[in-house]
């Protein structure tokens, strides 16, 4: 048995996260003295960090966060390993460690072969430079030599289908052209190990197929080792030979793509997951108000959800300080991140002021769910009266919708978006002449 191309042993990665301490509120107003006191404490702590040469973390309280914990696996040469898991499960951190961008806190990785990583399409593209120049720039960034790029240049341009615009600055490109060019460069890399993050989520279906074909060819024909992260389960099952499911930074399941994907989907969409814990999920950096925080989402109706049937969900939250005029939005997104349906509290006129509490909840009752049979991601967000973002989580959970008793068969078979009934009235006595149509 040859030695594995990638072997990962007990890998762990810790980040330090800063929090803002809950505001001390006296008679409803934050006291200036408190603010000064807190500022002084923060500055003092930062100064001490600087003296000791430690990392400076914004915020009043510093907390450890383990993005990866005790992860071990092996990938053999020629294997295609698919990584699945929710947002924040540690997939990207793992890829960053494997591509030597960041170093692990504990554990060890052994890589046998030249590694190239594709964590983002078009890394280092410069908008002012032309397509031709960017091919050389991007190629060099990904580790190709100039001679190598020159040799493959025509092939890259043909793959990207942008011959006409080679000398136009890429800032004038349409986003599709941009992505095609970027992927074309990356697809012509010839490393022994290729690490790819969710890069196929871009581009049209036609181009995605082309990219998949190219990746498949690379692994089958040339025996290269491939590591792929994707939220598209179809990609995982069709491209990969093995799969690994990460959850909260730990390996949850490993095996053939079919079994792992099956279990992952079952766990993240079915009855087993009636309660989604939200407290530990990462929030986008722009959102940082500790007054309000979603704690959990609970389904109060049968799962999977049914099209055309009622649905009910309960959001548990915590308020550390009073907030006024709070409004919450629950959004259903397609798996590739397009918002399909939003339930906005303002629509129902249900805004309200909240007092300090750690056991409050709000319920959303949907009379008839208009989403057709498919998988959907959930978004949550909460704002106060002045549209100040209090908390928000995108892609916090996945939910499956299946055909309901009243769903017509023609819809039930398709994976689809929103389906609404509407009123249909037939009429056989209309006069075509009125619309300027000549009757035959």
């Amino acid at each position, binding site marked *: 048995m040859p030695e594995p191309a990638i072997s990962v042993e007990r890998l762990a990665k810790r*980040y330090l996260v800063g929090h803002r301490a809950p505001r001390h509120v006296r008679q409803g107003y934050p006291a200036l003295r408190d603010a000064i006191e807190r500022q002084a404490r923060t500055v003092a702590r930062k100064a001490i960090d*600087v003296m000791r040469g430690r*990392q*400076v973390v914004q915020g009043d309280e510093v907390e450890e966060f383990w993005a990866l914990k005790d992860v071990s696996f092996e990938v053999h040469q020629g294997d295609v390993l698919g990584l699945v898991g929710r947002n924040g499960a540690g997939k990207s951190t793992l890829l*960053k*460690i*494997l*591509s*030597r*961008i*960041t*170093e*692990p*806190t*504990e*554990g*060890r*990785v*052994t*890589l*046998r*072969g*030249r*590694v190239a*990583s594709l*964590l*983002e399409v078009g*890394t*280092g593209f*410069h908008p*002012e*430079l032309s397509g031709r*120049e960017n091919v*050389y*720039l991007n190629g*060099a*960034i*990904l*580790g190709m*030599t*100039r001679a190598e790029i020159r040799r493959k240049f025509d092939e890259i341009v043909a793959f990207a289908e942008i011959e006409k615009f080679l000398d136009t600055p890429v800032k004038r490109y349409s986003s599709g052209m941009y992505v095609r060019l970027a992927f074309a460069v990356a697809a012509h890399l010839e490393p*022994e190990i290729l690490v790819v993050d969710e890069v196929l989520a871009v581009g049209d279906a036609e181009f995605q197929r082309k990219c998949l074909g190219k990746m498949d060819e690379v692994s089958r024909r040339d025996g290269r080792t491939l590591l792929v992260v994707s939220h598209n389960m179809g990609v995982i099952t069709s491209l990969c030979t093995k799969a690994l499911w990460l959850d909260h930074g730990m390996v949850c399941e490993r095996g053939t793509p079919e079994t792992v994907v099956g279990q992952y989907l079952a766990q993240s969409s079915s009855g087993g997951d009636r309660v989604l814990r939200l407290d530990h999920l990462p929030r986008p950096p722009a959102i940082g108000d500790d007054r309000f925080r979603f704690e959990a989402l609970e389904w109060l109706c049968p799962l999977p959800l049914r099209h055309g049937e009622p649905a009910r969900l309960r959001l548990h939250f915590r308020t550390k300080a009073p907030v006024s005029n709070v409004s919450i939005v629950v959004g259903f997104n397609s798996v590739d991140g397009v918002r399909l349906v939003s339930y906005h509290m303002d629509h129902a006129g249900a805004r309200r002021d909240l007092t300090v509490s750690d056991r409050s909840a709000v319920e959303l009752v949907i009379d008839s769910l208009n989403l057709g049979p498919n998988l959907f991601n959930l978004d949550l967000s909460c704002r106060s009266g002045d549209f100040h973002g209090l908390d928000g989580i995108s892609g916090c959970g996945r939910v499956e919708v299946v055909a309901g008793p009243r769903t017509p068969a023609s819809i039930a078979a398709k994976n689809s978006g929103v389906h609404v009934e509407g009123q249909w009235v037939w009429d056989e006595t209309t006069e075509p002449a009125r619309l300027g149509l000549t009757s035959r």
Partner: protein
Amino acid sequence: MTDVIVIEAGRHERNYWRDLWRYRELFYVLAWRDIAVRYKQTVIGAAWALIRPFLTMVIFTVLFGRLAKLPSDGTAPYPLMVFAGMLPWTLFSSGVSEAANSMIGNANLISKVYFPRLIVPTATVVVAFVDFLITFSILLAMMVWYRFLPGWQILVLPAFVVLAFLAAIGPALWITSLIVRYRDFRVIVPFIVQLGLYVSPVGFSSAIVPETWRFAYALNPMVGVIDGFRWCILGGQGALRPETLAVSLAVTAFFLWYGIRRFRKTERSFADLL
């Protein structure tokens, strides 16, 4: 034979310098990108590289030569002396300040692709070097204008160019590694560079510095470099003293060693800090 890479916490890359060599193409490409992009969408383009130093030279000549009536080096025209000092100073100052910002400017690269990070600040110093070459043509034009013929000393100039380059890289690397962690230095760097202009013999000759201050003065590595430039360009006239040069060389060597050491120590965590 396939490469074996082992990634562990706190482990130094054994083949760091070999990697640096392997990625040399990226080094050229990054420098080329910065040069290519520099004057895009400007009207007069690369002429800016000529206008800026020329105006500074005029101002310094009027300020120090005419108003303060400071003496030049030997018989050399004052503007020529000022320019011979400004050449290495501009290389140093723009090298340091651009390198300092290079990590933040290339944050998207650093958080997405692996390459020896040393390439980024060094490539920006190379960009400053290209500006230096452009500015050098002004010097040649001025020499023709003043009918000033340099002596054999001009042949030593490349050595001082290299010295100026090394003098810039040391502090540049140190500041870069600091700036990634503590953005405070983003504010401090322009200030230090501005201050440096007045404690370096750019607008005046080293000859006017009192004897008692000579040692402290020479601790500024640019003093040796600028005096050396003048010695080469003005044909042996000038205040280049061997002891000043020795002190400057030692300080440059120290900064180079310290800068690389600090940079290597912190570069592994750059992606997390940016």
